């Protein structure tokens, strides 16, 4: 398996790996170890003036291939500082291309998307 430089960087550094606790944390979990990919995404949000939620901190845990881990880490990083929306910062197919993941990895990246959906649902977005 060949990994792009970006994949290798997010996989090796895994920025944002860990759990968030306390007030204002929304958690989404998807996948399972048995299916080869499990992802937990968390965001801590604060309400901005206009009735929106702004992500002030994000974290992830992941069991899966390097692309899964890299995508989860990237998503947590991207989310931080933004308003929380149901849409991913990029569509999942674009994320696959960003990390140069083979097409057969799409199923695993959908687990990352599902975790994001869970976060949004937990936050009521």
């Amino acid at each position, binding site marked *: *398996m060949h990994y792009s430089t970006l994949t290798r960087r997010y996989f090796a550094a*895994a920025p944002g790996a860990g759990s968030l606790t306390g007030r204002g944390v929304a958690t989404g979990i998807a996948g399972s*170890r048995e299916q080869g990919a499990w992802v937990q995404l968390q965001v801590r949000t604060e309400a901005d003036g206009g009735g929106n939620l702004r992500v002030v901190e994000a974290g992830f*845990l992941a*069991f899966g*291939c390097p692309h899964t881990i890299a995508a989860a880490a990237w998503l947590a990083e991207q989310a931080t500082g933004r308003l929380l929306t149901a849409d991913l910062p990029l569509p999942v197919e674009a994320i696959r291309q960003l990390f140069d993941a083979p097409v057969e990895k799409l199923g695993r990246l959908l687990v990352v998307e599902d975790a994001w959906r869970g976060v949004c649902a937990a936050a009521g977005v």
Partner: protein
Amino acid sequence: MSLPVYLDHASTTPVDPRVATEMAACLSLGGTFGNPSSDGHVYGERARECVEAARARVAAAVGAEPAEVIWTCGATEADNLAIFGLSAHAHGRGRHIVTARTEHKAVLDPCRELERRGWQVTYLQPDRRGLVDPARLAEALRADTVLVSLMHVNNETGVSQDIAAYAAVCERHGGARLHVDAAQSFGKCPLDFGASGADLMSLSAHKAYGPKGAGALLVSRRRGVRIEARQFGGGQERGLRSGTIATHQVVGMGAAFEIAAAEWQSECRRLAVLRERLWHGLESQGGVLRNGAAPDVVAQILNVSFEGVEGESLLAAVAPEVAVSRGSACASASGEASYVLRALGRDQRLAESSLRFSLGRFTTERDIERTVAAVGGALAHLRRIAGACTTAR
């Protein structure tokens, strides 16, 4: 950046410098570059002498007669020639083959191809030690069985099977020939073709510090084994395998086999020590299971399952420091590589998070230390990232 430690010798080995020197002498002008089939001059004659000397060295190293050695371009070709060549010769007597799920694809894929052509194939399950029980083999033989193909040393786990016992079962049956894929065994454990009672045996040079693209099929003369050729034109190898013989390649195989025959025992003693050191280093990380137990497994191979990490990520995380393999090199894209690990009692997930460490002639203590540190670091990193997933289970 320094290169990672190479612990993937079961996939391929570097060519021993002594072997490379002999090969180089067969290439250029001034060397033995002639065509061994050239009949009218000294260049051809010298090349032929080199080829026959190499044949004798390989034969001596594996307990065969020189006339039993048919050169091929590797064990894949040897396996294909054995299976298709024997089945083409024997199909009048029956069209049933017995093999095992844990065979290399170079055996399994030809068997599948024969199934497409109307043959029947029984795929034996190995027992909890990873071995095919001779009693299971005996049960599987039918009146129309013409071929049994079972490997000597498994390329994933390193477990070594009792080929003489299989030969005895085939002997009692009377009609079934035994083919043994010994690509992984030569140089790692005792190997004596003549004494084994096998009818056909596949060898590969590049698993034993010889060149890639060289191999041989041993065809027992004493046992009167007959196969059909598959490659035609030129009539080399007594018509059994036509095509210009690559002098430097077979010379390399001959040199490599002679060296390995002389050195394998001391090499195994040295590597067994390093291998145990590696195992103890890994074990101390916790959540680590060894696949294959000591007396069955050759000294060069350590197959380990790691709890709480995903296999592909583990391989990627150690890759900058250690070159190892998940399953066998050419089966790594498929799930089938884990048959033998599942037989050893691992569930699918653990089987998939397993690494094969295969040590070799140039492996040092320092390599082992570096490996233990790298795997330890990767495990800690990935388990931290996996967090609750692994404990929640």
